[in-house]
């Protein structure tokens, strides 16, 4: 049994609750205990745009909240994962940690470097393992052909992840998908970014990025894309029809969060356990290929 503080981030609980719902559902059944810390705030990644120190302080504040309960953090968002893990690495430097702790003392907090950070997919990969996932499968997903999308901050910066997977040639999400019985594909634009951080400043450029990937996937005969970050989800699914209209084409590529796919394999109710009806793209064609 492993135990983590669940770091929801900003976007998932507000805009993509099906990610949270399905992550909680699979975690409970795979022996991952998730503890809610209601004091958690924004991870600070976006604040770093305007103030590197401001971003660092918010990240450290979150680490300190988890450390006060002797817990490591598990994130759902790839960017929270990358930024919080990078902050753990940065705060190994004593002078930096002292400077940050001086400010954290204003709100009666302190971070001593004990709390570590992992993404939910990594926790499933390492703590549960592929064998136990395969044993937990109750439905046959072998007719599903899907495209993994890793999310940039799942594995970057590389220095923050102790050799877990390889950002230039990642494999773990492929393995996690294979363990559910579905077939993951390799494709040209695998490593392309979703453009989520470009979108607030230039939706046009973000749309060009999204189009590049959807255009590539359109020719690959897939049943769905599998993502592991709510921002990637919102870009590829939420922006899909706008991009299709803009580029005068048609896209109907369903996008699932990894815990939704895993939960489906494990026998969860698509609607009530995994939030399939909260996805904007209809998932009936995906479900039609799944056998009880």
């Amino acid at each position, binding site marked *: 049994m492993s135990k983590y503080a669940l770091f929801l981030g900003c976007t998932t609980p507000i805009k993509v609750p099906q990610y949270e719902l399905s992550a909680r559902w699979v975690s409970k059944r795979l022996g991952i205990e998730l503890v809610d810390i209601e004091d958690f705030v*924004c991870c600070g990644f976006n604040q770093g745009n*305007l*103030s590197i120190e401001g971003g660092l302080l918010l990240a450290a504040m979150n680490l300190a909240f988890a450390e006060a309960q002797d817990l490591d953090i598990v994130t759902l968002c790839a960017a929270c994962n990358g930024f919080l893990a990078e902050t753990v690495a940065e705060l190994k430097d004593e002078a930096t940690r002292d400077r940050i702790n001086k400010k954290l003392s*204003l709100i009666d907090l302190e971070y001593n470097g004990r709390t570590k950070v992992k993404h939910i997919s990594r926790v499933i990969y390492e703590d549960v393992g592929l064998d136990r996932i395969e044993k937990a499968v109750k439905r046959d997903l072998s007719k599903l052909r899907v495209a993994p999308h890793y999310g*940039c901050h799942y594995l970057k910066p*590389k220095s923050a992840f102790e050799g877990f997977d390889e950002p230039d040639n990642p494999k773990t999400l492929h393995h996690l998908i294979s363990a559910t019985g579905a077939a993951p594909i390799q494709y040209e634009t695998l490593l392309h970014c979703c453009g989520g*951080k470009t979108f607030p*400043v*230039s939706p046009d450029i973000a749309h060009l*990025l999204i189009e590049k990937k959807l255009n590539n996937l359109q020719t690959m005969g897939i049943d769905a894309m599998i993502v592991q970050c709510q921002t990637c989800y919102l870009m590829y699914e939420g922006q899909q029809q706008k991009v299709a209209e803009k580029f005068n084409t048609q896209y109907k590529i369903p996008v699932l969060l990894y815990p939704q796919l895993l939960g489906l394999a494990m026998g969860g109710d698509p609607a009530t356990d995994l939030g399939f009806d909260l996805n904007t793209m209809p998932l009936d064609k995906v479900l039609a290929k799944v056998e009880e």
Partner: protein
Amino acid sequence: MSNKIIRTAELDPNFKFEVTAHESARDLNYCFACGSCSAGCPIHEVFPDYNPRKLAKMIKLGLRKEVLSSDYIWYCATCRTCEQRCPQKVSFFNVLNVLKNIAAKEGYAPTAWVEQTKQVMQTGIVFPIEETCVKKREQLSLPSLKGEGKKAKKLIETTGLDEIESRG
């Protein structure tokens, strides 16, 4: 970023020192302009005008105002492929953050990012917590959100981040 004639009298030779004085951008000194950053950049691929190598060169030349007032520094998708591919281990992602921090202090911050900070100081996250969201979470039996930004605000106020105004 226009391709006009560069007049040396208008350059700020101290700009590169101003940027590399920040620890996270110090490694820019090791850049030998190979262009691996641009070759791997997904934004450059779909929008070739955005070019990390060119930005690095502009910093070194001292095109201070052109760089800081440019929309381009805010287009970075933060995918960090540039730092992953750099043979000199320069994190152009970190260099851009330093540029954005300086630009923000000088009044060039995009409204979207400034609004996010204001929101964090209220609810602790970058969104307001609206009634529809509260109801949806109740329906799904998900725990309620505290939506408290006071402690985050206190920390943010020590950095001057709360005083940054958007370019409007």
